[in-house]
């Protein structure tokens, strides 16, 4: 991995000024954006890269022989090379551009269909986002395979790994799990989980949607077979994401969508496929998005991902510890190490009322099931409020959050 050029601590206040959207008031209060788990804001460098691309270089990729097409192709493939470097993939051929994490996970589930047989099993966890659960439900339905689950311990949001080897031994072909839980903030021990999977000859799939913008992610160190993430949760644009897949596995898989770009040769009655990764990229890709993602990766590395991880996690731990004293609060996820988010229920105040209350004070939170309905059903709560942090959030914003939640509890609790 490229060593971080930063030696001293980042100037967080100065970095905040890189994000034009943060300079506004909402309902008469300075905007406090704490919905970064849903999508992060974009720095000027990313916004400018999109404008520059459309103003100077826009053309379709790979097929054209004119100058602009050459530039667009170079920019698109440079983004692929950069993405490989960003997650330390073995080669850029292991980088498939997608619309985002969801499409990446669906791609795997679809393209491996022929390799799953009745009686096989797919292992996931009880903390999956719907996007890392429903594609496997559909795969199981298509193939006659069954779904197995690694249990979640309870409100502390940890995976119960005591029975993992027993589960993996049940004819499991594929084990999918999140790096960081979007609902609980749990940071799962990815390399340990991948090592278990490998010992059982099971393919590992990491949902890195919530980790990619925060932690250093090194697919070779983690030892995963697949890893999917979204650009828009790491300061990049929407509509672009990456699926990393180990080259040998990608070679064995069927195409996902069919059309231009993914073919080598087309006859009226049959076709042959382009080489990996192009085999998995049908149609005109999100070229500008790839350019913007490139700019976002450069931006994050100019700060240093270990510093971002420490910053976000510190804000979340601080919020967790101080929210614990709010009357009627029920906090979820581990008390110690956690990703940059906090999720909680408040007695007498539904999550949507909390979010409406906070919104009137300029604070953007998220309330609901966060696309993990089965998890909340298990824990016995329908909806929670989530505050998720990023590099531009400040300790003063945590103060405001805690103050507003305290007043919300009072307002609804009476």
């Amino acid at each position, binding site marked *: 991995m490229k060593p971080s050029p930063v030696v001293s601590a980042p100037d967080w206040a100065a970095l905040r000024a890189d994000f034009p959207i943060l300079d506004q008031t909402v*309902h008469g209060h300075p905007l406090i954006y704490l919905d970064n788990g849903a999508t992060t804001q974009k720095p000027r460098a990313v916004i400018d890269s999109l404008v520059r691309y459309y103003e100077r270089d826009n053309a379709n990729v790979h097929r054209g022989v004119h100058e602009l097409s050459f530039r667009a192709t170079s920019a698109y493939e440079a983004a692929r090379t950069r993405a490989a470097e960003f997650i330390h993939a073995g080669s850029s051929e292991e980088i498939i551009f997608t619309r985002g994490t969801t499409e990446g996970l669906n791609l795997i589930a679809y393209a491996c269909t022929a390799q799953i047989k009745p009686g096989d099993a797919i292992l996931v966890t009880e903390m999956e986002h719907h996007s890392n659960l429903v594609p496997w439900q559909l795969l199981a339905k298509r193939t006659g395979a069954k779904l197995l689950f690694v249990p979640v311990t309870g409100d502390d949001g940890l995976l119960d790994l005591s029975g993992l080897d027993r589960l993996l031994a049940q004819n499991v072909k594929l084990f999918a799990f999140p790096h960081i839980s979007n609902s609980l903030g749990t940071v799962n021990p990815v390399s340990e989980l991948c090592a278990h999977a490998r010992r059982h000859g099971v393919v590992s799939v990491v949902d890195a949607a919530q980790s990619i913008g925060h932690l250093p992610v090194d697919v070779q160190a983690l030892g995963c077979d697949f890893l999917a993430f979204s650009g828009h949760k790491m300061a990049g644009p929407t509509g672009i994401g990456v699926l990393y897949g180990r080259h040998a596995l990608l070679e064995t898989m069927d195409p996902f969508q069919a059309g231009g770009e993914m073919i080598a040769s087309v006859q009226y009655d049959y076709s042959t496929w382009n080489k990996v990764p192009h085999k998995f990229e049908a149609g005109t890709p999100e070229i500008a998005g790839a350019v913007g993602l490139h700019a976002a990766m450069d931006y994050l590395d100019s700060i240093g991902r270990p510093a971002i991880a420490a910053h976000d996690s510190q804000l979340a731990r601080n919020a967790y510890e101080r929210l614990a004293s709010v009357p009627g609060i029920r906090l979820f996820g581990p008390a110690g190490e956690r990703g940059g988010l906090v999720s909680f229920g408040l007695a*007498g*105040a*539904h*999550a*949507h*009322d909390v979010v*409406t*209350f906070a919104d*009137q004070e300029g604070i953007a939170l998220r*309330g*609901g*099931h966060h696309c993990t*309905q089965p998890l*909340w059903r298990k824990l016995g709560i*329908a*909806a929670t409020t989530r505050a998720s942090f990023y590099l531009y959030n400040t300790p003063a914003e945590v103060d405001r959050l805690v103050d507003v939640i305290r007043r919300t509890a009072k*307002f*609804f609790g*009476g």
Partner: protein
Amino acid sequence: MDLTELYQSVILENNRRPRNYRKLPTANRIAAGNNPVCGDEITVYVQFEGDRITDISFQGAGCAISQASASVMTQRLKGRTLAEAEALFGRFKGIVTEGKPDEEDLDLSAFAGVHQFPARIKCATLGWHAAINALHGESVTASTE
């Protein structure tokens, strides 16, 4: 705006202590409502005799707006005919979408502030949709999304 405009005391009070919050063993019309986006769920039980609602209750989980609205609704629908219930729902929809309070109905008018929060209108009408479905004998789940 001031949040007390949205969360009028009638709403806060009905959310804290919802009226007619129970299963109704004598119900002959039951319908569920849910909002898949936020996970709000409600079940409305109606005892419908002749053309009259002789008893009505609800159970569910959701935000203060949806719970209070269902609570107030059960109080206002008891003793009504189907036509009266539909007319009342029409009046209520007018209040929450246009924000014009109804002088004759202060309890329903407490929800006038909802119109300033378009995302919350579906919370206010969830229980009503389920009740009207129940009265029509439709066992389908009402969805406000």
